[in-house]
C-alpha cells in the first residue's frame, strides 16, 4: 500500500463518515460541522489529485464562506431540532432510503464499468502523475472559458441583487 492509497482511504472514509453524519445528526449545527469535515476531507482528496488550487478554493469558498453563512443563519434563526412527525411517514422514508441505495448501486456500476474503452480510460495511463498548476487553470479560465467566466460574474451579481431585494423588502414591511 503506497502513501497515496493510504491517504485516499483516510480522506475518503472521513468524507463518507462526515456525509452520513450530515444527514444523521438531529441538530443543524452538528450537520453543518459534519459537512465542514466532509469538505476538508474533499480538499485533501483534491490535493491528492494534484489540484492544489481547487483544494485551496474549496476551503476558502466552502469552509470559509458558505458554511459560515449556514452557521450564521442557523444561529440567527436559533433553529432547534424539528419535531419528528411529519407528512412524510416512515414508509416513504424507507422507500427513499431504498431508492438511494439503488441509486448508489447504479452510480457504482457506472463508475466501475461505463468508463471502459472510453477516451478517459485510454488517456489515464498516459497522464497519471500530471499536476495542474494554478497557471494552467488561469490560462483556461481567461482564454477558452472566458465567456462562462464572465457569465458566472453575472450570476453572482444577480444573486447579490436578489438577496438584497429579498431581505430589504421584508425589512421595510416590518418597520
Amino acid at each position, binding site marked *: 500500500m503506497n502513501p497515496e492509497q493510504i491517504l485516499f482511504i483516510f480522506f475518503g472514509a472521513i468524507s463518507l463518515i462526515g456525509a452520513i453524519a450530515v444527514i444523521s445528526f438531529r441538530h443543524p449545527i452538528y450537520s453543518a460541522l459534519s459537512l465542514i469535515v466532509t469538505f476538508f476531507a474533499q480538499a485533501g482528496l483534491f490535493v491528492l489529485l494534484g489540484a492544489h488550487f481547487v483544494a485551496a478554493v474549496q476551503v476558502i469558498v466552502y469552509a470559509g464562506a458558505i458554511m459560515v453563512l449556514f452557521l450564521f443563519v442557523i444561529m440567527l434563526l436559533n433553529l432547534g431540532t424539528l419535531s419528528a412527525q411529519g*407528512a*412524510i411517514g416512515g414508509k*416513504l422514508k424507507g*422507500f*427513499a432510503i431504498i*431508492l*438511494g441505495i*439503488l*441509486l448508489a448501486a*447504479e452510480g457504482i*456500476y*457506472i463508475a466501475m464499468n*461505463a468508463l471502459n474503452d472510453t477516451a478517459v480510460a485510454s488517456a489515464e495511463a498516459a497522464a497519471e502523475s500530471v499536476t495542474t498548476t494554478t497557471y494552467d487553470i488561469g490560462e483556461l479560465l481567461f482564454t477558452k472559458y472566458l465567456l462562462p467566466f464572465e457569465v458566472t460574474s453575472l450570476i453572482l451579481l444577480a444573486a447579490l441583487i436578489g438577496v438584497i431585494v429579498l431581505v430589504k423588502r421584508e425589512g421595510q414591511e416590518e418597520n
Partner: protein
Amino acid sequence: MSKELIVVLLVAPLVGFLINGLFGKWLKGNEKLSGWIGALAVLVSLVCSIIAFTSLNGGAAPFDETLYEWITGESFAFNIGFRVDALTAVMLLVITGVGFLIHVYSIGYMHGDEGYTRYFAYLNLFVFAMLILVLGNNYLMMFVGWEGVGLCSYLLIGFWYDKQSATDAGKKAFIVNRIGDFGFLLGMFTLFAAFGTLDFATMFDDAEADNFQKVFGASTLVVATLLLFVGAIGKSAQIPLYVWLPDAMEGPTPVSALIHAATMVTAGVYMIARSAVLYDIAHTGEVVAWIGVLTAFFAATIALAQNDIKRILAYSTVSQLGYMFVGVGVGAYASGVFHLVTHAFFKGLMFLTAGSVMHAMANELDMRKMGGLKAKMPITHWTFLIGALAIAGFPFLSGFWSKDEILHSAWGSSPLIYGIGLVTAFLTAFYMFRLIFGTFYGESRVEPEVESHLHESPPVMWLPLAILAIPSAVIGLLLGWGGHESWFHHFTKSVFPEAHHDASGNVLLFMVISSVIGLAGIAFAWTRYSKRAPSDEPTNAMHKFVANKYYVDEVYNSLIVQPIKNASHYLLWRIVDNGVIDGIVNGVAAIIRVIGGTLRRFQTGLVQAYIVSMVLGIVLFLAYYLFFA
C-alpha cells in the same frame, strides 16, 4: 471600389432608420432634426453612390464580392454579397439622388405631422431595402430587398393609419403584391432547382453555356422567367395586378413620388433588366412587351377620365411602367432602363409638384376645384410644366429621348406594339395637359376660404422641385443623344446582351413622328380644356365606363374577393374551425381534464414527495439505460 464604401452606402440609411425609429420619441420635440437626420443618411448614400459610379470606370470594372455567408448547406450557399455594375450604379444614383431630394422636400411637406419621425424612419428603411434590392448579387438578396420595399410601401401607404381608406389601400397593396411575390418565389425556386445557385454571375454564365438542370425540360427558363415576371407584374403594377398602385396614393405625396413613381415600382423593370440574359435565352420578352404595352394603353385611357390629380399621375405611372416593360421586353434593355431613369426624375418631379399644390390647397386633390393656380404658384407651375412636357415627349426634353428609343426598338420587334405605343403617347400628352390646363390655367374654381391661403411652398419644398426640374429637362439630352449610340448605351453595354434586332428605319423619322404625336396631344388638350373646366359628370356611357376604371376593382371584388370571403366564412370558419379544430381542441382539453383530475391527487404540496418521485424516475431511467438499452 471598396467593400467599405458599399457597406457605408448601404448602412447609412439603416442608421438613419434606427435613430429615427428607436429614438424618435426624444426627437419629437425637434422634428427638423429628425428630418435632417433622415436626409443626411440618404445624402451619405448619395455621395457613396457617386464615388461608386465614378470608380466604375465607365462600366469596365464591376464589383462583385461576398461579404458574409448567410445560409450554408451541404450543396449550396447563400451569401450576402453585392454587385455593382453599370446597371446597379445607375439605379443607385436614381434611388439616392431622387431619394435625397424627396427627403429634403418631405422635411417641409410633413411639417407638423403627428408621425414625423416615424415617417422618416420608414422612408430611410425604404431606401435601405431598395439599396439591398439593387445591390444584391443574387436573387435571394434581391428578394430580401424586394420584400423590404414591399413592407415599407405598405407601412407608408397606410402611414395615416387612422384613416380607413389609407389602411385599406395599404392592405390592398400588400395582398396584391403578395400574389406577385409568390410568383417571384416560385421563379426563384425554379432557378435554384435548375442552377443550384442564385448568384447572378454564375447563373448567367451557366445559362449562356446551356449548363443547367432542365427541371421543366426545354422550357425551364421560360417557366422561370415568366414566374419572375409575375413578381414584376405585382411590384410594377402591370395588368392584371396594377390595381393597388392608384389606391396607394392614399399615402403622403412624397411617398408616392419616391416609392410609387421613381423607385420601388421600377423594381420589376430592374429585375428583368438584371435577368436580361435569361429572358434573352428563354425568348419570353415578347410576353413582357405585350403586357407592358397593353398596360400602357389601358392605364392611359383610364387616366383620361380622372379628376384627382394624384390618380392621374398614378395611372400615368402605370402607363409609363408599361413603356419600360415594352423596352426591356423587346430586348432594348438599355432603353427600358433609360426610360426608368428619366421617368424617375420627371414623375418624381410631378408628384412633388402635386404635393406642393395639395400643400397650398389644404389637401384638395380634385382639379375641378382648382384652376388658375399659375399666378399664385409660379414655381410649382413651371416645374410641373417641365415635367409634363418631358412625359409628353416634347422634343429634346428627357421623356422624348427615352420614349423614342423604346418606340424605335418596338418597331423593330412588332409594328403593332409600336402602333399601340404611339397611340398611348398621344393619350399621355393629352391627359397630362388636361391636367395642366385644369389645374394651372383658366378661371379659378378654388373655394374662397382656401383661396385666401393660397401660397407658394416654402424653399425647402420648392428647392427640390427646382433641382429635379433640371435633370427632368436635360438628362435625356445628356445621356440619350445619339439614340442607340448614346453615352447611356455605351455605359450599360457590359451588362446587357447584344440587342438581337438592329434598329431599322430612319431614326430621325421616328423622332419626328413621336414629336408630332406628342404635340398633337398637347394641342388637342389645349383645344378642349384651355378655356373650360374638366367636365363634372361623365356625359356618355363610354366616359362613365372609363371614369370608373373599367370596373376592374368591382370585377376583382365579385370574382375573387367575395368567393374567398364566403368560402372562408362558411367552410373554413363554420365547419373546419368551429367544428373540426375546436372539436379536437375541446376533446383534448376534456381528456386532459380527466387525467389531471386523477393526477392532482398526487400533488400534495410536499416538496419531498415530488423529489422522491423525481429520484424514482432517475433510478428507473438509469436502470433502463444501463441494463436494457
